[in-house]
């Protein structure tokens, strides 16, 4: 990367501004750049350089003062929310937002855990890398059962774009030919353990409607020439992904889309630039650019472009739009429908079960697998819905041999106990529900009427709760996970249901605040993620989703973004934008 990649002040009118540099923004920038468009990527946080800024990579636990745990005082002061993320540790905390600087409020009696990653690369550095296509059942679900508005796209609209991004990103997985979970363009799948293969056979035998497959992850199990050219090599099975990966073995903005975009010579990046609002021209009814507050010194500046892509995260993009109040849009730009900020959703990861697989004492595995197994959703259309609630869930999990952290609590004192701790123990296997959350108008984010953050931007205020449907689904999922493990012959089964204690948000799959739709009266975006009300404003992150499906959303963020850029550039060339 050249040093002039990063800019501060600029009068240039770019072809495109992309707000955000995560999975979505990275792809948007790459696609614009590769189509010859002068592109400005705006990032609110600091620059994180691939390899150079992975400051904890390769450090072993004993090299951390608190053995990778985060100091209490620091956690209390800066990371009260972030600490709830499974990936938060002393080895990764520098990639998480500082809660003290990034306040938001929630309605009394409710909670929403908002995980932040405000730096170049965003959450692409921290994601769980699970990559699944949505199916036609997912795009039709709202229409089929009447919850939410109909997606204005179908699987065929995205299919070729999925293929395009998968080829570039590198997705490991296996062809399963499931109608509810289409195949991707796959690199070889990660391997299953012997007990997983055994449980797969048992489950598929007892439950003909269910499959147990290897999870699909954005890891290079066998890089192609395209990946090698990006400077990426084979995954080393360290499973330390959240520290950053110098092998580029998992997909991130840094490892993949950013170098590709920079290579074109068409990319500029404005880091430390917190977008306050959009600049709207009442005469032309177009956005002209963005107003920015400097992340560090709070000075203000503006950037200009012919089109603006908001890829600032589901809550972030909607915040920018709500904070752009103009004469024509007193309630936020492109919000003539009044749904902007509403229909906030997350995934419901709140129930599951774990048990012991007997035998297999002569079996072990080698390496730390950066992914697990999946039982794809088996309630993916109304005829398959269970009684009492709508929609379904997938079950993600995996097996492991117990190790000292669990065995430490077994009775024992002295040499025998110590020796036992150094040996692999029981095989345990778990299944954890990834449930769909219904789109509901009542679940929303708005701007706080009085409070602002240090950049002078109104705080986000969130009112989002699990509905009865989500609660019933988790109760069923807990029982189902137990049943499946029982039928598969597992023993010592324990289960959990945390829907009453865990807030939405912590699945980090928040979507839905500026949804797509055919009707401008009940949606913000059209089928190409273009605002119904403002032709040169696009939102291509999770804000645009009409439903959550059960799949991890990132791959669909990518595909939908690439499709929107392709459309946008064609429209610009045809002078319709």
């Amino acid at each position, binding site marked *: 990367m050249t040093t002039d990649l990063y800019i501060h002040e600029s009068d240039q009118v770019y072809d495109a501004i992309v707000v955000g540099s995560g999975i979505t923004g990275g792809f948007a920038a790459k696609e614009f750049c590769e189509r010859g468009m002068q592109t400005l990527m705006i990032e609110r946080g600091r620059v994180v350089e691939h390899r150079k800024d992975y400051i904890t990579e*390769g450090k*072993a*636990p*004993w090299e951390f*003062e*608190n*053995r*990778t*745990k*985060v*100091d*209490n005082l620091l956690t209390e002061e800066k990371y009260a929310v972030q600490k709830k993320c499974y990936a938060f*540790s*002393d*080895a*990764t905390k520098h990639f998480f937002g500082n809660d003290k600087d990034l306040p938001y409020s929630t309605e009394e009696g409710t909670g929403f855990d908002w995980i932040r990653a405000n730096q170049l690369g965003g959450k692409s550095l921290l994601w769980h890398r699970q990559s699944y296509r949505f199916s036609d059942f997912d795009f039709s679900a709202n229409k089929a059962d009447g919850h939410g508005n109909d997606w204005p796209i179908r699987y065929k609209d995205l299919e070729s774009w999925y293929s395009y991004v998968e080829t570039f990103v590198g997705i490991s997985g296996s062809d399963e030919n499931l109608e509810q979970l289409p195949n991707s363009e796959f690199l070889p799948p*990660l*391997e*299953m*353990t*012997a007990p*997983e293969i055994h449980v797969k056979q048992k489950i598929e035998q007892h439950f003909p409607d269910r499959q147990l497959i290897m999870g699909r992850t954005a890891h290079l199990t066998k890089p192609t020439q395209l990946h090698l050219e990006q400077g990426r090599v*084979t*995954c*080393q*099975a*360290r*499973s*330390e992904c959240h*520290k950053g990966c110098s092998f580029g073995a998992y997909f991130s903005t840094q490892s993949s889309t950013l170098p590709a975009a920079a290579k074109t010579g068409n990319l500029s990046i404005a880091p430390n630039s917190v977008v306050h609002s959009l600049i709207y021209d009442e005469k032309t009814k177009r956005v002209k650019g963005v107003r920015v507050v400097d992340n560090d010194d709070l000075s203000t500046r503006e950037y200009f472009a012919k089109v603006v892509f908001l890829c600032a995260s589901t809550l972030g993009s909607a915040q920018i739009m709500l904070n752009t109040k103009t004469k024509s849009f007193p309630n936020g730009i492109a919000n003539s429908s009044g749904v902007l900020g509403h229909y906030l959703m997350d995934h419901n990861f709140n129930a599951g079960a774990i048990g012991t697989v007997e035998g297999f*004492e*002569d*079996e*072990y*595995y*080698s*390496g*730390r*697998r*950066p992914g697990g197994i999946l039982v794809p959703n088996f309630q993916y259309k109304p005829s398959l819905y269970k009684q009492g609630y709508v929609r379904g869930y997938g079950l993600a999990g995996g097996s492991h*041999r117990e*190790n*000292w*952290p669990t065995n*430490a*609590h077994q*009775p*024992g*004192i*002295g*040499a025998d*106990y*110590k*020796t036992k*701790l*150094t*040996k*692999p123990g029981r095989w345990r296997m778990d299944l954890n529900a990834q449930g769909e959350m219904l789109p509901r108008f009542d679940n929303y984010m708005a701007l706080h009427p009085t409070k602002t953050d240090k950049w002078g931007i109104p705080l986000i205020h969130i009112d989002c709760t699990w509905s009865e449907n989500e609660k019933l689904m988790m109760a069923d999922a807990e029982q189902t996970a137990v049943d499946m493990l029982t039928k598969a012959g597992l023993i010592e089964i324990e289960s959990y249901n945390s829907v009453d204690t865990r807030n939405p948000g912590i699945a980090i799959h928040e979507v839905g605040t500026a949804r797509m739709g055919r009707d401008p009266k009940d949606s913000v975006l059209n089928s190409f993620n273009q605002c119904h009300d403002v032709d040169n404003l696009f939102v291509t992150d999770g804000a645009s989703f009409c439903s959550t499906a059960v799949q991890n959303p990132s791959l669909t963020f990518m595909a939908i973004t690439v499709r929107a850029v392709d459309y946008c550039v064609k429209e610009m060339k045809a002078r319709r934008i």
Partner: protein
Amino acid sequence: MPTNSNITELEKKTCDEDNRRVFMKKMAALFGATTAAAVLSGCSVPMAQQFAAQRPKPPQNGKLFSEHELTVLYSLCETILPKTDTPSGVEVGCHEFVPHQLQHCHTKQQQDDCIQIINTVDMQANNEFGKTFPLLQPQQQQQLLTKIEIDDKSSDIQKEQFSFLKALIVFGYFTSEVGATQALNYQAVPGSFIGSIPANSDTKSWGSLAYY
């Protein structure tokens, strides 16, 4: 009841390991050099009994544990994870790790629980054997801890407190370099994931994960 053989045992435990000088220093700080030397030289039963009769004092220096509690913790680390073909809990510094980790990464409740269980252990040592825990024979120490862990007479709270402290000592051990790389089989860069490899009763667990 054992008599003065405990002195010899303590002497054995402290004479050959360099890092056990720390223990002597702590005892010296606590009881004065003369008393400590007398106890550790193994020639003064009355002195040892005087040592055992000392009541634990709350720390005066803002630290979590009193010097006496630290000596009990030291012996706990040594008893729970003794030296085998791999170094002991004390040798990898578990007795220093525990106060550090509690202070920095745990709740007040967890800190209090650990202080309490350490004193419970010592009180039971005094009640049953008439001596402070560090001065018991290893066999007595093991017997006493096993009792706390599984005996019906110890309360659920005591069991939970002990289990927490024990797990923290174990955490300190296996996240240390020696624990992760010698007691376990550590792969810094595994290279790839293989779903099935053979294992037998000699197979060691894989060493520490990247983070906890």
